[in-house]
């Protein structure tokens, strides 16, 4: 299974270039798409989900251009948009049946079975008769996963699913996602580095509609081994430090002093201590480089 994106571009009416000559290849497994707000994540996701036509470029799934035959592609597609609502008065069970029909599961017996499985898999079975509009944020996201699973998709696109979830909900959600991700392509966009670290076998960093880096998280961290240094400074020294070193990030300590993390091939001086690299360091290093 392979998704190939070839020189994809999209410019909106207001002149915003959302996707800019983007190339990417994604294979089976969890794939994290990391980028700041407005980097073009959602535009890319929507375009892969065939909800938006690109101005130029192509997307191939298993060698087939998905915009040439949208219907065939949608059979194997599962999509969870960043923000979605549901018909206010319908229960999860009703809505899943509705989607099952829309997704072409024509046998009623099949539908009953699959809807029940999806409810179990997302741990919504007990609340299947409740209105989805009354669900909490995490339950609603799990419902979103349930609906995309109905057609047993080979390519799953989830757009910023963890935004706004509390830690427990987030963990539970990621577990559900992990379970379904092993045999399929799951493209998962987020602005949280942690999500990717916990979940993805591969990731890409996107900015201004282009891919800056595509790498496996393990390799990403490995690439920085021995290159990350930490120092505690006073707040007023930050600008000075930024001018002298590649400061990746800074965080406040309890005494109002700052800890900074610096990227350097060799120890800059004795005031720095070596520290194990994180994926976040990689993310900032890539953004800083470009």
């Amino acid at each position: 299974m392979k998704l190939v994106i070839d020189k994809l571009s999209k410019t909106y009416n207001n002149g915003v270039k959302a996707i800019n000559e983007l190339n990417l290849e994604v294979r089976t497994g969890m794939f994290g798409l990391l980028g700041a707000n407005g980097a073009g994540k959602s535009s890319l996701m929507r375009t892969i989900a065939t909800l938006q036509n690109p101005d130029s470029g192509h997307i191939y799934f298993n060698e087939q251009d998905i915009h040439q035959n949208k219907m065939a592609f949608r059979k194997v597609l599962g999509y969870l948009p960043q923000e979605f609502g549901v018909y206010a008065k319908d229960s999860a069970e009703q809505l899943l049946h509705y989607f099952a029909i829309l997704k072409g599961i024509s046998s009623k017996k099949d539908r009953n079975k699959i809807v029940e499985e999806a409810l179990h898999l997302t741990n919504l079975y007990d609340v299947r008769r409740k209105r989805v509009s009354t669900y909490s944020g995490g339950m609603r996201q799990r419902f979103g996963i349930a609906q995309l699973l109905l057609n047993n998709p080979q390519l799953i696109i989830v757009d910023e699913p963890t935004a706004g979830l509390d830690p427990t909900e987030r963990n539970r959600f990621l577990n559900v996602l992990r379970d379904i991700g092993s045999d399929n392509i799951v493209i998962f966009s987020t602005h949280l580095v942690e999500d990717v670290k916990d979940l993805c076998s591969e990731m890409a960093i996107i900015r201004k509609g282009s891919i800056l880096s595509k790498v496996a998280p393990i390799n990403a961290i490995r690439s920085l081994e021995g290159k990350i240094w930490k120092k505690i400074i006073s707040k007023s020294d930050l600008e000075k430090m930024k001018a002298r070193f590649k400061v990746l990030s800074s965080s406040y300590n309890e005494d109002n002093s700052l800890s900074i993390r610096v990227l350097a091939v060799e120890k800059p001086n004795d005031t720095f201590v070596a520290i194990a690299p994180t994926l976040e360091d990689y993310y900032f290093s890539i953004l800083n480089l470009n």
Partner: protein
Amino acid sequence: MKSAIFNYELKYWLTSPLTYLFAIAFFALALVMMLGTGGYFDGTPTESANVRLLNSPYEINFIFQYFGKFLLFLIPVIVGTCLYRDYKSRSFHITYSFPIPKADYLFGKLLSGLSIILIISLFIGVALMLGEWMLGTENAKIGAFNIWAYLCSYTFFTIPNLLFFSVLVFIVVGMSRNIYAGFIAVLLLFLFQIIVENVFTNNQFLMALLDPFGQNAISWETKLWTRAEKNTQFIPVMGIVLYNRLLWAGITGTAFYLFYKKFELLHESPFNNWFSFFPKKNKKNITTKINNKVKRISTAVIDTSFPTQLRAMFEIALIDFKYMAKNWMFVLFALFGLLALVFTLLKVTNTGQFNLLPLTRIIVSTPLFFYSLIVILATFLYGGMLVHRAKNSRMNQLIDATTFANWSLVGSKIVALILLQITLLCLLLLGGIAIQIYNGYFHFELGQYLFQLFVITLPMLAIWAIYSIFVHTLSRNLFIGLFVLILTWLGIDGFEQLGLHTQLLKFNTYPTLNYNDFNGYGQQLSGHFLLKGYWLSVVNILGIIAYLFWERGITTSWKERFSIAKNRMSRIVWIPLLMLIGAFLLFGFKIYQEELKTASALGFDKPKGKIMSNFKSKFGKYAHTPQPQIDFINLELAIFPKQNNFKAKAIYTLKNNTSAPIDTLLIKTGFDEITETFIQKKYTLLETDSIMQYAAYQLQESLLPNETMSIHFDIKNKSNTLLMRNSEVIKNGTYLKQDILPRLGYFYEETKKEPSDTTARTDNYVHSNYLNIETKISTSEAQIAIAPGDLIAEKGGENGRNYYHYKTPKKVKFNFSFHSANYKKWGEVYKDIDIAVFHHPNHTNNIEKMVSGLKAAIDYNLKYFNAYPFKNIRVVEYPHTAEGYSATLMANNIPTSEIQFIINTEAMKDKIDMPFYVMAHELTHQWFGNDVMPADALGAKMLTESITEYISLQIYKQAFGQQALNNFLQLQHKRYLRGRAKEAKKEHALYRVKSEQQYIAYGKGATVFHTLSHYLGEEKLNGVLKAYLMQYKNRTDTYPTSLDFIAMLQEATDESFHYLIDDFFKTKTFYDNSIDEVKYTTGENGQQQLIIAFTINKYQNDELLADGTFQEDIEIGFFNENKEVVHIEKVKVGNKANRVTLELGDKIQSVVLDPNYLYIDKNRKNNQYKM
């Protein structure tokens, strides 16, 4: 802060294209309406006397009221949205946390929206003024411009109405946080008005008071206004109009106060539980247990083949339908519909002029029409909800990423709407049957229901469903969509205003299908289905366009939508599209052809005025050319019911009754017939007019005095077109009249002669002498054929046809009827007269009442005048679709409308026994109207209808008593007063009554003769009538005028009555009398002493007479507890204010001025005083 909110909203609307769209649309509609009515597009009216002025204050207000109703639909759009926008965008979460006072928030929103609507309403006024100016005062329908007419309408009706209903809609939207509820509120108002109008038909005061729009209040105040008053007077704003306005101001004010008190700027609406049918259960905190049994989802077969998509389309449609049907709006629509059904039906079965049995054909006519209106409105609203539903709930991305095809998506919404329509129609079916059962009518014509509902009505509704989805798909904005839909719907009539009469432009509109029990729908169906086919192909093309432009995923511009549409134009789309366009062209061309045929048959290709002026310039010179009289007609008439045709051969024997030779023949042949003329003398054709079917011939050899000649005519009907019925012959229930037969003479004199004109006496009002007619009539095997005279032979079954031979036993008036139908015959012999009723087998309820009416008329007329001149009477039923609800005497036949047979006499117990009365009236015409024919002058109807109506009253009184007579007289008074209010031209005195002034001939005429009989005595008046009858009976040398009769009346009566005769016959006199006060004391011996103060307002020729200028005999009636007359006091009065004192022994319960209904009184209500 208030001004900040107000300004923000105002700016929002002033920069919204929607506002300008509405303003322009209303401007254009109002202008087109004004210009169209003024004849700007299809010829300025030339007639100038007594026309209805278009720009009188009355009329301007009327137009404003009309547009005011459209404006109501803007209220939810604009006022509702001002509030609703905050809920829809969820911005109220933020704004409600600001320190905004409630008052600022609510008033800012309400007033800004209201201002925008008021600005839009100004465009209507400007358009009307522009229209006035464009038509110009030289236009007969335009009077002098008057700005007060506009100001008055705005001040008292338009602005208050918009204010009242804006407040109500605002409240509803504020409470429900739902914009659709605002629309429903507007619909409810309309419904409320309909209900008020129907419930209070017997209490017009309440109807006027409660009407939310104030329309009925104006009607109440102006109901007796004549045309001249309507053209000049300002609409009254005091009295009931003021009360009505105050009442509604009070209602809306109170509602707003209550709403204001409860409203809070809160996240949860304080009215949250008002709009759900079931109280919400307490929300439990939802938690879920982990279940790890299922690790994977099974693989299902995903099928996107055509049959599966088709099935899925229906499955989704069913889900969408359930969603709509469960919604509270649906319950309201269904309720509206059923109420509309009940109230429109009540008018037919209980409250109207005639109470009819609730036949199925009646339920599926007007009530179904109103019901359909509600279904159509539901289709518009739900269409928008379905199209925008996914996006509004932000579920569209989930749906759009599925494999569901666009066509099934569009299709599912159309199917869902149609399912909704079917449900509503089924509800009507059940409701209709329930009403029939309730009324004790158990003859359920299920086939007729199903055919009308699902074969005729449903396709029409489905066309609207597809159109609704099309419009909403393209418009993106719900309100623009709704506006376009309503505009299409109501704008259809606009084409007529623009002078475009073709059906090809009137979207989804069909000529009314008339069903009758004899003939069913007859031949109208093929034309109807032709039009349906045309609109179905149009709307399916639109359906395909909706598919092409259906928004899937995210599109950002129309350019993109077009390019997507282009991509969707695959071969699978092209093939049906081309087929539909082919069907559209084919149907359209056929309709165009049929319309051409129809137009040329009607002469529509030329303006009407021109046809007449052409005719007059050619034939006017023959107006006074003496003509021979028709002495005998030998007619062979073959009716072919199945083919809708007849063929006739008529041989006329003409006789020169004048003293000079005649060499010019003027022959008018049937308008709807094709007639060939064969004159048995040598002649030359002088002139001919094919539209007016008229020809003048010059005989080479004159017809000498007393000489006879014959003319042969071959007559056949014009054939029907698919859209137009030209032939009077129908499959069952054919009713032909003398107008199929040629006539001799010139019938187009513009002015009738005065009764004082002695030359009028030489011709009668039907322009023909008495004559004999012999008819050999044939029809198909199953039917009975009827013609005038005695049946002298009949022969059945030859060549599958029935033959009948009729001949008049004596000469009759030139009024004949010919019938053919599957009749059932009812018969009885009474005083040697064969009475037969030929009727529809199911219409049996009223036959006995009809026959008793005939018998009573035979007896009464025999007692006072002389014997009925024929040996038989045939009452022959004709379908209501042929001609109105009445009956006519034609020789010894009385063709009678089906309505008289299906009146529910049980429900009309306390009204008039119509079947009895109509028969008594028609038969009496044998004496007054047939035996004596009045001269061809003004006042002729006094000698036929007034006298006949009076005699019918007497017959009625003998049969049903004094109280029934009083009821009847009261109706006659109303008939006169309402008729004169509606008079488009000039009211004449009775002796000069014009033939179309029925309110004078019947309403006033009957009252006047009755009052005379009250004063003179029945014997005495009938004596005069008999003398008149004997003097003129069957004469052809001279015919009486109204003045001849009045002279006889004066001669036979004492001089003291002559003023009464003058008042009644020669002036326009009526009264507005009242009892002002009654004082009473009871004496020691139980005697009651009464002092009655009363007013006599006598109006003569539109002037109120001053004290001392009149002398009147007035009766005052005194009634006891059992409503029995105790005493009638006769008083002579000559002043307006009067007082009478008297002592009576019995206890008096009520005093009534004019208890015998002798005088026509403008307001009878104040004639009674209850102790």
